């Protein structure tokens, strides 16, 4: 007997699955077809302006830094200012996301924009978020042919661009957005929910930023 049959057989026996299978199947199918929304914290349920404000507050509370700009055209300038302020080389790594590509990077002659996945030698990676989540100051990043996941983890500094219209009050709203984008029950290969820069408390419970992922997370909120 295979492990599969043994495990499922034992479960069915214990759960009395033979007698009430139709009811049980229906309960499971119903839940998978229509996931219950559950309890969603009040904290993220304000107006759009309140959501953006809360998003920035929560992100800063977990040691991310935030810059707000009015339009996407301003993003390259903010990135280059960030590099200068942190004394970093004028070089960034990013995917070919069309929202990032549409920005005027070529106006910054001195800035070297490297395309594609990170090779582990990049100081700074730039990504565009699928969404922001106000309740926890989290950004949601999706993998795909234009969005390498390595950019989110290998560089020392991670800069993430978030559009205000994509800032939701809660995680459930973002999950609904994913179902709409990819179809029911389907997901991108990787969904990264990132809340602040990487950290560890493993030595004497002292929290230190910059464990294996980026040492700093900078959010550029557009709009």
């Amino acid at each position, binding site marked *: 007997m*295979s*492990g599969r049959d*043994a*495990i*499922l057989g034992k*479960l*069915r026996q*214990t*759960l009395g699955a033979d007698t009430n299978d139709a009811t*049980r*199947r229906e*309960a*499971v199918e119903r*839940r998978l077809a229509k*996931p*219950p929304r559950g*309890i969603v*914290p*009040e904290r993220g349920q304000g107006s759009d302006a309140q959501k953006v404000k809360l998003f920035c507050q*929560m992100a800063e509370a*977990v040691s991310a830094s935030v810059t707000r700009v009015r339009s996407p055209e301003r993003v390259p300038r903010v990135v280059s200012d960030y590099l200068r302020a942190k004394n970093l080389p004028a070089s960034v790594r990013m995917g070919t996301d069309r929202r990032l590509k549409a920005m005027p990077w070529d106006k910054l002659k001195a800035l070297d924009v490297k395309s594609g996945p990170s090779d*582990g030698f990049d100081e700074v990676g730039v990504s565009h978020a699928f969404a922001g989540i106000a*309740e926890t100051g989290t950004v949601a990043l999706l*993998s*795909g*042919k234009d969005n*390498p*996941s*390595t950019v*989110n*983890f290998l560089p020392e500094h991670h800069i993430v661009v978030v559009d205000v219209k994509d800032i939701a009050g809660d995680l*459930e709203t973002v*999950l609904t957005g994913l179902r709409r984008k990819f179809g029911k*029950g*389907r*997901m*991108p*290969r*990787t*969904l*990264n*929910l*990132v*809340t*602040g*820069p*990487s*950290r*560890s*408390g*493993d*030595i*004497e*419970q*002292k929290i*230190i930023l*910059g*464990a*294996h*992922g980026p040492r700093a997370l900078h959010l550029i909120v557009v709009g």
Partner: protein
Amino acid sequence: MEVTSPTFKQNAVNALHDAQLQKALGNVRAGFIDKRRKAADALPEFDALRDAARDIKDHTLAHLDLYLEAYEKKVTESGGHVHWAETAEDARRVVLDICRMQNARTVTKGKSMITEEIALNDFLQLAGIKAVETDLGEYIIQLRNEHPSHIIAPAVHVNKDQVEADFRRAHDYLPADRDLTEPETLLDEARRVLRAQYFEAEIGITGANFLVAETGSSVIVTNEGNGDLTQLLPRVHIVVASIEKIVPTLNDVSQILRVLARSATGQDMSVYTTLSTGPRRKGDPDGPEQYHVILLDNGRTSMLGTEFQDMLRCIRCGACMNHCPVYHAVGGHAYGWVYPGPMGAVLTPSLIGVDQGGHLPNASTFCGRCESVCPMRIPLPKMMRHWREREFERGLNPATQRYGMKIWAAFAKRPRLYNFATSMAIPVLALFGGRRKRFSALPLAGGWTKHRDLPAPERRTFMQQWRERESRKQGASA
């Protein structure tokens, strides 16, 4: 790994006399409790979410066969492979088969309690495959050839000067005069050393906090980012997870996430929550080419339908041990196997047998703090009591304890005899207690009086005092 749970009492004595350990345990008492409290207080919906989280897992467990099938279907649809393993041995064999097919020489590992449970590292080492732990705490204890003493802070028993000594020994190719006095410099060194390993490894192995039936995704929740590099950079990603990690939908993940990090580290959300679904897609610039999930039973199906079923709701946050006075006193290693603290006291006898783990449910004051902070509302003290009953039924506790209980029971079941005996004994004991009203030595109570005095009883029994009090009250109200 070697199981030392049967010698829990001696382990505990050793732990109490270990000055380094006692110093380190201060960090548990000081750190976790306040942080959890603050995070829970800041979310008005916290307790309602605990109820919701409990209900989600109860529903899932009642339909576990069906959700596992739905999950498997989704993983397969997204190009992943599902392997079913009844035992630890089965799971290890699947891992080894995949390693052999890839000609793997190095595997990196994200932090995972389930791979501790199946003792995967030792097994791979015997097979000639280097397994590298990448979580800082796990890396430290791997260098020390130890096991985790806490399920989310594996190296909580180690002090920083010990880590420095370990790093100097293990990284002897680095300059000897480098500064390693602070946690920051130690972390930096681990970061540099492990970076190379992620790129070298052919296979990355992680556990899972959740498996999602709706989408076939595995979810890891981490702070360091090592788990992500482990599952992102090698050619093959293997997820090892026990069957009760299943949740029905993404929304259910969201509900439980809200209580997980708050209960564990006092964060609203851990830094990285990552959902992985299948291998690299067409056109993807990075990600693993193969994605395998090993669904492990290893005793879970036997807990279902018993008085220990509620334990299968556990999400491994560590809150129960962070709040446990026994854990605070003896640390995690005294428990003698993979899972320490109250959750370990319930789970260990379930997974390795009450004859091996039967001491652990006795390591409790029944103060109830574990249950009061458990995000999944698992009735831990009640289940420890069930284990004590089973241990007694099977005659596993020492003869002195058993006869003592029997003698006590013989009196307790006969109230007149009990009252008579105590009313005779109490004044005598009170008399011997002398003016200090304390005993510093007493026959049969050496274990107690070795470390502290035993207070002498009052001159009358509780029952006598109660009767007098009641009659005084009646007299007053008449």
